[in-house]
């Protein structure tokens, strides 16, 4: 084929490829990577009195995370307050992941065990909320759980409670919001993993007198481990940096990292500190992702395949044993 064409510059694979890739690389490079680097630079500057930055090098923004000037002595003393916000965000995210898994795993399992014909529809039903406006979903959640909202109205009418539950504007509301926001993120990767699972392995375990729980624990979970990790990360990362759920459902009082970052750029006017918080959050997230990517690539070939191989041998053995 190459003989029939006079190779022009555009025919050159490398040149053509670079040209085709350049729009994406330029857009992401200029409008995402450059801004992120700019945040890194800003985190080492000094804040202007009413917002913006003063171009002088300083590590104050990072020190501020751990130390604060004492009101009286003006000495720098250790204050865990910002670490506590990180801690609280972390806790909220972990609880959200836990509940998402608790509901998401059975759901994913149920869908994966439907006949192929209906699986698509079930999956579609889970996917829609994933694409629907997160702000509206969160606001409607607030609408429902308010003291005078439909949920309390409903429970009061049924006589289950005798005074409205105060859920709105509490940490429970924030966690509920995170759970609700990111539940589809848990179900989808779990489904993908379970769908590929070889269910004859469960039969094998059963034939070896494993209880349902043991079959789940020792056969299903290890085989779909990467799906579990992916689901947990997909819920954990956006939960950690969430802005809308704490803002709308937490009533501005239950700050999470995302709100704290936004606050520095809007009300509190300390851009370098906001930038430093963003850098810390991003570093944490990227480390987390790389760690699991590394582990997955390392373990997927070895451990998981080994387990599967062993299990398959067992199936064969049991099948042979059973067909006497």
């Amino acid at each position, binding site marked *: 084929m190459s003989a029939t064409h006079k190779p022009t510059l555009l025919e050159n694979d490398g040149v053509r490829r670079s040209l085709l890739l350049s729009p*994406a690389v330029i857009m992401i490079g200029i409008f995402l990577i450059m*801004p992120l680097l700019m945040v890194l630079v*800003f985190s080492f500057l000094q804040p202007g009195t009413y917002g913006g930055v003063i171009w002088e090098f300083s590590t104050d923004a990072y020190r501020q995370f751990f130390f604060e000037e004492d009101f009286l002595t003006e000495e720098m003393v250790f204050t865990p307050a910002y670490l506590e916000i990180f801690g609280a965000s972390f806790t909220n995210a972990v609880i959200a992941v836990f509940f998402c898994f608790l509901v998401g795993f059975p759901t994913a399992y149920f*869908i994966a065990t439907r006949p192929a014909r209906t699986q698509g529809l079930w999956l579609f039903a889970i996917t*829609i909320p994933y694409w629907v406006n997160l*702000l509206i979903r969160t606001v*409607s959640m607030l609408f429902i759980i308010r003291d005078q909202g439909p949920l309390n109205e409903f429970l009061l009418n049924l006589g289950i409670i005798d005074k409205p539950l105060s859920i709105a504007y509490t940490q429970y509301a924030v966690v509920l919001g995170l759970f609700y926001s990111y539940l589809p993120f848990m179900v989808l990767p779990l489904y993908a993993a379970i769908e590929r699972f070889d269910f004859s392995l469960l039969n094998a375990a059963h034939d070896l007198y494993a209880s349902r729980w043991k079959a789940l624990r020792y056969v299903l979970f290890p085989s779909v481990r990467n799906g579990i990790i992916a689901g947990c990360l997909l819920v954990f990362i956006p939960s950690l940096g969430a802005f809308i759920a704490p803002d709308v459902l937490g009533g501005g009082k239950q700050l999470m990292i995302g709100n704290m970052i936004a606050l520095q750029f809007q009300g509190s006017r300390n851009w370098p500190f906001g930038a430093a918080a963003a850098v810390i959050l991003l570093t944490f997230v990227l480390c987390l992702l790389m760690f699991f990517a590394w582990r997955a690539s390392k373990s997927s070939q070895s451990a998981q395949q080994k387990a599967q191989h062993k299990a398959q041998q067992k199936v064969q053995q049991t099948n042979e044993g059973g067909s006497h």
Partner: protein
Amino acid sequence: MNMDIKHYPGTRAITIFCLLVLYSPMLVVAVYSFNSLRSISNWGGFTFDWYIKAFNNPAIQSAALNSLSIAFTASLIATAIAVCASLALLRGKKFKGQGAFAGLLSLPLMIPEIITAVASLVFFVAIHLTLGLGTILLAHIVFCIPFAYLPISARMKGISADYDQAAMDLYASRWACFHYVTLPMLMPGIASGMMLAFIVSLDDFIVANMVAGPGASTLPMTIYSMVRIGFTPEINAVSTLLLLTSTLFVGGSWLLNRGDKQQRSE
């Protein structure tokens, strides 16, 4: 063989609970958008009044126009970029750094939205770009790229390179080959990717809120500030329309993909 081992009791109930949790808030909003009373506890009869009121609200009108033009333009450009990128990454020989480029394309997905938002703000301010519709558009194109890329690349992987080969053996130029062979086959993927990108742009609140300028309020921003003032059925009406739009687009995108899969499996 005992097939029942596959079945775990309670999974159906939990699935239904899961769907209930996911859908009930949206349904409640939709139902109340038709309530003629402002009240939550009383039903005053079915009405379209709130929709009419919302349509006549100039703030909502201009926000809707802003949102639609940004979503449309951003998804169009992001889709074009994604098509180019998928041609480069999935056609032709393997090359060094292929994985790194694929990673770069999905980078916008991995960064928490609030960080994208403040980074964009800091950057636009630093390069003295006037904040407004243009800055929202630029930010949206970037994070729409991975959403457009996913279905397009999936489709591209499904098209055998033999078609290209055959066309070129018949002395078709590269462009003609792309135009008459690859592009028509890629169309479902492109349409599906553009729909997803459109939705993602239409729904964004966090980034737009940070980089918006005068007169550039988008629909989610307007809804946010209206909700703060008071929960009116008018907001429910707008929200319901937005929910419906998303559902239609995702449904469309899904049908395209499904038809595509069935075709291939047949």
